[in-house]
């Protein structure tokens, strides 16, 4: 993709019918470090790779709890992601104030979609440079929802976004039949294996760079970090890598 005369404002269409600013924002999402979400009939899990800018820095927080029954993982410009996470948190809490109940995930999806779309149609605004994977549990069951800067908000059985996430999606497609009846722990193992496939051959998942989250029936949204991640990594330790990662585009920068 190269610069052309139709890409200066989000309100300008190209002759091919594209909004280039939106496409570029999707590229920003693809630069962020990968995250995977999978759901079964009872649970939804998220795993994410946390990047550290250098050895002196701590690893970035990628997963946010939005409410007891829902959380989100972010890939792309983390600062944009935090704004969206905070928006979703206030949507959840103001619904709870009015109704004393958890907000249905479909309602969150609609609100998110409207907020994202607004930035693709107003002069002077820019699309959010971040994709979200929302994991939630409501009366209809568990949900995994994927959003991206184009404002497309879609429910999925399993998804992955971020750098080299195609390898993860390949793993997920291959194992799709195993997810519906899996236990929460089995789902987490699948998600970690999918996430591992996005790493270059010499790198590995560690308790420092991996974060896990789970929500579901009888399970409020819980984030697992640091030492608590280690048992899950040990369980997948003996399984070989399925697929060599697809070549990355673009390098590391400030984005996560």
């Amino acid at each position: 993709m190269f610069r052309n005369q139709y890409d200066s404002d989000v309100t300008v269409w190209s002759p091919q019918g594209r909004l280039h600013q939106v496409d570029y924002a999707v590229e920003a999402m693809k630069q962020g470090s990968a995250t995977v979400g999978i759901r079964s009939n009872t649970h939804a899990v998220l795993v994410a790779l946390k990047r550290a800018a250098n050895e002196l820095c701590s690893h970035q927080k990628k997963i946010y709890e939005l409410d007891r029954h829902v959380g989100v993982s972010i890939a792309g410009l983390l600062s944009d992601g935090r704004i969206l996470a905070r928006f979703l948190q206030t949507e959840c809490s103001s619904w709870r104030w009015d109704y004393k109940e958890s907000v249905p995930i479909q309602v969150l999806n609609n609100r998110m979609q409207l907020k994202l779309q607004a930035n693709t149609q107003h002069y002077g605004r820019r699309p959010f440079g971040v994709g979200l994977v929302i994991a939630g549990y409501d009366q209809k069951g568990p949900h995994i929802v994927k959003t991206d800067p184009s404002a497309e908000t879609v429910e999925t059985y399993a998804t992955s976004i971020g750098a080299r996430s195609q390898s993860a999606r390949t793993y997920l497609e291959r194992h799709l039949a195993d997810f519906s009846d899996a236990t929460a722990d089995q789902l987490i193992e699948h998600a970690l294996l999918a996430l591992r496939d996005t790493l270059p051959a010499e790198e590995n998942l560690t308790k420092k760079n991996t974060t896990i989250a789970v929500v579901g029936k009888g399970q409020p949204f819980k984030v697992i970090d640091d030492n608590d991640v280690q048992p899950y990594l040990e369980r997948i330790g003996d399984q070989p890598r399925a697929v060599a990662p697809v070549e990355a585009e673009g390098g590391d920068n400030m984005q996560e």
Partner: protein
Amino acid sequence: MAAHQVAHRIAEENQRTLNPTCTGTSVVAVTFDGGVAIVADRVASYGKTARYKGVSRLYRLNSSTLIGFGGDHADFQFIQNLIYRRAHDYKAMCGDPDAELSPMAVHSYLTALLYYRRSRMNPLWNTLVVVGTQPDDEGVKKPFIGIVTLKGVAYHPKYVATGLGAMLIQQSLETEFRKHQATYGAETKLTKDEAVGLLRKAMELVYYHDCLAHSEYEIGVVTTEDAAVLPPEELVGNWAMAETNCNYE
């Protein structure tokens, strides 16, 4: 009153509710094993005159929620419309034509609404009883009663009576519940027939003692299957004591 005082009072009445106009009296509700039953009579009184008969004071919102009102009829019709529209919007928001607001959601919304109006010193002059079946964390439907008063006081009782019924009936309900627990054990609940029978007795007592109450009433029942307002019933009562109680002119 002096002219300026009359003018001031009229202006105030135009800006906030000072007193209710056409009112409903008591509402009584009890939970039973597998649901809730609620009863209210079918009259709207204009002061002490029984002005409008055949008025239903129970509103079926959806298959898991009934709302009963006491207090101003016009304010309730306003609230009824608000709730109906909110339930309709909820279906659109969920993208599901079968999505239903739960009784807890309706009760919480009404609590916020009535407290807000009270804080503006312009209340909706109602006591509302929301009954239904509410899914718990596991998704199992449990009986639910929520009451909200015009001051925004709200709570979730196992049985309740409003208006004059709160003074007359609530103690009788308490006694019945305690007796049932003593006979069958603390954790057992009334059956549906026992609950409906209890409400009929309660209506009879209300009719004897509350001058605003009327003899035609209707019972609403919510179970885990559905919510329904049963056809109206008429009670006669036992007025034999009128023969002996003649000490007034």
